[in-house]
């Protein structure tokens, strides 16, 4: 059952992204102005990059070992279980850090409504027209809160299995909830990856360098670009 749902969801997500790429294409960065030339804007601090790297790495291990157990080993045991547990601890720490650091910046504001009305920031419009957005656009905020909710579900279910409160069937339900939450998280992360690497090219640079080109910032997060420029970031 879970394997079937897994295949359907992942296939749907991948096909959806492919269709989006073919019909709407990537949201390209606007041409550099003279003012933008050679200038970069700091998008992620060192701490934020660390949190993001921890989240990304641990999630890859968690998803890899979880899927490996399902498709290769048939059960989560041995080295895969060990890696899953270790990565789980890192993921929990990173998610908590992400919540503390980014939750306030992911609160929806009226500008997000405008961004959504603008064809989800122009992602569902063929023309290269951008909608103004803050540091995080409404799409990123949706993904953030989904990640938070699903991440919480995976942590809470495992925490509950460690308590002597649930019997055999209760434990099985908790593990199922854990797996389905993890699966949805995989879909969310796939969308996040697609948006970062293909739909909004150039965003990935901030993961490593912490900075993005001023043109990119102005194109995709105009309001935040203006604020950052004023602050001198």
């Amino acid at each position: 059952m879970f394997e079937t749902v897994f295949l359907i969801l992942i296939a749907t997500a991948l096909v959806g992204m492919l269709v989006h790429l073919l019909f709407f294409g990537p949201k390209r960065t606007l041409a550099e102005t003279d003012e933008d030339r050679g200038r970069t804007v700091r998008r992620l601090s060192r701490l934020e990059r660390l949190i993001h790297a921890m989240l990304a790495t641990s999630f890859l291990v968690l998803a890899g070992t979880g899927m490996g157990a399902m498709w290769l080993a048939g059960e989560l045991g041995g080295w895969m279980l060990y890696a899953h547990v270790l990565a789980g601890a890192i993921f929990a720490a990173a998610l908590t850090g992400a919540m503390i650091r980014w939750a306030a910046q992911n609160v929806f504001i009226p500008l997000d409504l405008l961004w959504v009305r603008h064809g989800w920031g122009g992602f569902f419009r063929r023309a290269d027209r951008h909608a103004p957005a803050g540091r995080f656009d409404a799409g990123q905020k949706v993904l953030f809160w989904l990640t938070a909710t699903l991440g919480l579900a995976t942590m809470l279910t495992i925490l509950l299995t460690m308590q002597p409160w649930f019997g055999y069937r209760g434990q099985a339900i908790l593990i199922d909830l854990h797996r389905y939450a993890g699966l949805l998280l995989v879909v969310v992360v796939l969308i996040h990856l697609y948006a970062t690497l293909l739909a909004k090219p150039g965003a990935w640079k901030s993961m490593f360098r912490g900075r993005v080109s001023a043109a990119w910032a102005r194109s995709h997060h105009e309001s935040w670009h203006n604020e950052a420029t004023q602050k001198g970031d």
Partner: protein
Amino acid sequence: MRSPRLGEYLASLGGLLVVGLTAGLMLLHAWAGWASPAAQDSGSRQPYKHILTLYDAEGRIIDPTAPDARPYSPRMTCGQCHDYDSIAKGWHFNAAAHTVSVGRPGEPWFLVDEETGSQIPISDRDWPGTHTPESLGLTPWEFALKFGRHNPAPAPYGEPGDQPDDPKARWEVSGRLEIDCMMCHSADTRYDPAERARQLQRQNFQWIPTVAMGLGRVRTDVRDLEEEDPLAALDPAYEGPQLPPVEYNRNKFDAQGRVFFDVRSRPLTESCYHCHSSRQVGPDAPVRWHLEQDVHLAAGMSCTDCHRNSIDHKIVRGHETEAIETADPARGTLSCAGCHLGDDQVDHPAMALGGRGGAPHPLHRGIPPIHFEILSCTACHSGPWPEQHTHPVQTSMAHGLGISSTDRTWQTPPEIVAPVMAKGHDGKIAPHRMAWPSFWGWLLPDGEVRPIAPDQVKGAAGPLLSALASRADGDQADEPPARDPSADDQPIIDVLEAISMRLSAGAAEGAVPVLIRDGYLHHAEEERLIRKEHSAGEPYLWPLAHDVRPAAQSLGVRGCTDCHATDAPFYFGMVSTSFGQGDPARPIKQMYELHTQQPVLARAWAMAFATRPAFQVFLFACTLVTLLVLVRYGLSGLGTALGAVADRR
């Protein structure tokens, strides 16, 4: 008008035809009845009173007062109502028939010879690691004499098989070794299995059911007829020693010459124990009153409450994969999980729900489900509580428990140890009993090792074997395969050379004599003893299911560290031979090796559990913070949304 003569003739012919047809039909009916006796059934839950006329092996009614009275035959007596041939296909009797799935490996017979140091697991069931009696030259006659004490099987062990003529066999005078129904079905425990063993050694095979039940006695032994031509005893004119007549105990017979058999259709636990007993032995063995019996027995159940069968005697073995192996889902409902958890694969709703025999549904609170995927129920619930070293164990089948002996000490071979936590045939870790094979054999060019019968080894090596007994080997288990020759190795090399010289004519071309011992294969090469790992040296393991401990004594009841700790026997217990404990020459493994786990992982996993409480606190903190942030901004977002709706209004 017809002549009266013709009329009379026709009438006579018609009469003859009627008589002939009637006789033919009667014969046909009799033949059909003989070929397939219909099982009789009272249809009541009340046990049927078995007040029976006794029949001898030829089907003649027994007169207990006759001076030459023959022993009663279960085949002919019980077979009057019960289909003996169908029963003979049941689990206890069909090992050599090769008609059923061999299923989960079980306890084999052990061919033991102290002089050659042989300890060879043998079975006809093709369990991996066992050898067939035939491959070791054991004829049905020899097998019956060696193992008939605890083996209720008839053909081919109870009578001549398809093997070459056995000059030692004396079936003509000993009679058949029939299935002895009362060995299991005696309700008053009058049946004496030790007497069965005694009569077996006296070669009084066909007298066993009569004497073991106390129905009569025999004063002479078939084995005493050895000096004479045994067939001569069958000749009425023969004046030498006669086949032993039975002196029946006439008090057992009623006025009509019938005997009351106190029969239980479901055998008593005590009857099962004759063949299925085991005990821990050795200097550290607990005294008997310190031990608990199986929790099911303590609750008033008996073996046959779970190990059920119908008249076909296809007894439920009770393990979880049995339903798949036999394509009979109902069998799964009598496994541990089937009774205690239910089995969705069964159509019958009551069976699917579990609770058979009043089995309680376990809660298993706080135990992650992975445990149920990789462990059998018995891993936590059965057998002795695991300790740092395995214990030597003796069993009925291997050591003849149930038959009093002054020769049996705790060091009597075969060497069997328990409990060994190892991966079973279904891939789940379960407690097992274990024995290391030890024998001289031939390494064939295809890599297979074929054991040599101990008697053949003795014939070839003779006095050279005595030097082996004092062998004091200082090898380490993890030593490299190639070794320098030493005085300790020389006796083995000598025996291997003697086997090569004297027995190679009967061996396959290119076969090399080897010794399987201490978990390794040894062979001589240029005056040196070479030791290698080989599958033939792997230990033979069979799962143990009993005694089941109460839930309060299950592994894990004190927490995860019952198993997940760096000193937990479940992972790090030492598996040695019974008598070689602490002797570096004897094979030693750690339990995790038998779980097929890597040592680093086993240690890392165990060490991780030292930090588990801290991990729980950490995870709780992370979850709480994440939850609070979500609630905080969730409520805030809800407030904003409601405010926006209000503004719009």
